[in-house]
């Protein structure tokens, strides 16, 4: 229970309240990291699909379209099931709030999901080509935001490791989404038709690794949570699976269907692990007060703080803390 100081509170060195967290851990459950994955997959697949269409790769286009549509359909289900009061899911659309990434995300998901499912259905029925095209364009328009806004969703909280990673998270999730979409396509396609998907997946995995590294550098001491506990294991698994999967896909995936399937699956698994790693890291950094108090104390030491007013200080004495 207690950390610093004797439990009787002796000693002025006690810098936390019985070692209890200053902020609350998120209340989100397994649906959210899963949604981070499916949302990214859905968003990027829509883009991949339209790009392939324009490039004349119908098979890739259709596969990506179906994959995207399915992912788009699963995502809202996951979100609703995570709600404390699922029967009130529609309250998300009561308002439009630019200050609320989740609200914006809800609208984006509505657009993306609506568009991709329409497109997919029409594709199946093979009718109303112009409407379908419009839907595909719409899906492609909502796709990229859907794939990246989740980074903002997490960053726009008081969870230290998320908030301090706000620069990288959208990029990390974007790259992860690209890798997932590419890899998923490879799983369902004959290698001959999957070349762009392969290249996308492999490249994305590489970019993702770089971004992750950059983020840990910026986080400094905070970054250690990515090497501890569940988050540590998951990010290790993420790197391993995605890396190996990409390599396999790049070397053998060109010709061998099996290798493509396995490589794609490994990348998808790796990306899922990545989402979970980020998710868990957030909980771990929220749990320990030092990750909240430490950085704030440093900032206050650097720039002063106006949160506290000491005797003799006129209110508003200190330089602006940032």
């Amino acid at each position, binding site marked *: 229970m207690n950390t610093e100081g004797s439990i009787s*509170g002796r000693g002025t060195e006690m810098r936390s309240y019985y070692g209890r967290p200053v902020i609350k851990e998120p209340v989100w459950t397994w649906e959210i990291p899963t949604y981070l994955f499916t949302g990214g997959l859905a968003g990027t697949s829509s883009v991949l699909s339209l790009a392939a269409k324009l490039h004349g790769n119908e098979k890739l286009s259709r596969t990506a379209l179906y994959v995207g549509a399915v992912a788009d359909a699963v995502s809202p289900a996951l979100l609703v099931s995570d709600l*404390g009061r699922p029967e009130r899911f529609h309250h998300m659309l009561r308002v439009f709030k630019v200050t609320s990434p989740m609200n914006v995300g809800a609208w984006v998901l509505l657009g993306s999901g609506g568009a991709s499912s329409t497109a997919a259905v029409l594709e199946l029925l093979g009718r109303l080509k112009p409407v379908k095209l419009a839907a595909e364009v719409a899906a492609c328009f909502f796709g990229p935001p859907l794939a*990246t806004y989740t980074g903002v969703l997490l960053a726009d909280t008081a969870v230290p490791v998320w908030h301090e990673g706000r620069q990288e998270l959208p990029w990390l999730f974007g790259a992860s*989404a690209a890798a997932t979409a590419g890899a998923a396509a490879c799983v369902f396609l004959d290698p001959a038709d999957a070349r762009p998907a392969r290249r996308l997946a492999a490249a994305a995995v590489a970019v993702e690794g770089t971004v992750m590294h950059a983020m840990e550098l910026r986080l400094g001491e905070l970054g250690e949570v990515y090497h501890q506990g569940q988050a540590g294991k998951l990010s290790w698994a993420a790197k391993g699976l995605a890396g190996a999967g990409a390599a396999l896909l790049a070397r053998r995936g060109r010709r061998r269907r099996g290798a493509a399937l396995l490589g794609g699956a490994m990348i998808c698994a790796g990306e899922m692990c990545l989402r979970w790693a980020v998710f868990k890291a957030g909980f771990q950094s929220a749990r320990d007060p030092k990750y909240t108090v430490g950085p704030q104390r440093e900032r206050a030491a650097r720039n002063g703080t106006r*949160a*506290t*007013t000491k005797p003799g200080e006129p209110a508003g004495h200190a330089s602006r803390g940032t």
Partner: protein
Amino acid sequence: MQPTGVPAGWEAYGDEKQERVGFFTDTSVCIGCKACEVACKEWNLVPEDGLVWTGESYDNTSTLGANSWRHVAFVEQRKPLHVPSEPEPGQTEDGGRGDGDALRWLMSSDVCKHCTHAACLDVCPTGSLFRTEFGTVVVQEDICNGCGYCVPACPFGVLDKRDIASDRPGSMGHKPDLPASLGTKEDGRVWKCTLCYDRLKGGHEPACAKACPTKSIQFGPLDELRERADARLAKLSDEGWNGAQLYGRDPGDGVGGFGAFFLLLDDPEVYGLPPDPVVTTKHVGAMWENMATAAAVLVVGVAAAFLGGRG
């Protein structure tokens, strides 16, 4: 969003707009009786949430949450209540053993800060959280769908999801207003201090402030409270109180000043409060721009995958 000291959304009330009110909690007169905790639960029908003995001094409430909207912290310290005028011989820095003057017991009633710039309010996707005509921040229990986004958004860890099942035996207070179809599922919504929004509408002061035996919890117009607090701080420093400081009184701080601020006798973190809180949505604009770039690059990246011939 840069701190301006004026709560967004409040101005929009026009004629219905009321004077901004809040709490000044002066911990130098708090006797730790917890009347505020009980008064709050009695008025707001907040459920009893478990009989857990913590051993953390006399604090068995532990933290603010869905079922504790007031929380009295207890900190036992080997530290003199007053700064010794001159260092007494043979007295260690934190006071010699057995020297009663070197023992103090800090008590402080924590509560939602009703920030001028409130992250919970900003991030709420349903508009359940809103800024009232009194400038306070309230969760609307008929709107909240329990998405839980406000929970990690709060820099003070004030809000939490209520997971108490409606049919828990012996539990007092609020019963979730669930549709029968959902049976006795847990409440599932997020709860926090409303600064007794309904009482304010009736012209009554909040339950905790009314009950407080020593008026450690003072309710009133925020500007007036800030003046009172400044005077109080001056008096205490004249009397040589050790570590006296105001917390959240300054509209220039990271959340634009608290609607409920404090006079503490040690640094905020000692009471479990963040030393330099900043509204988490401060960078949301930049984050959107950043995301837009990333999204654009994603499109380019996908396109790039198709370059360089077939095969």
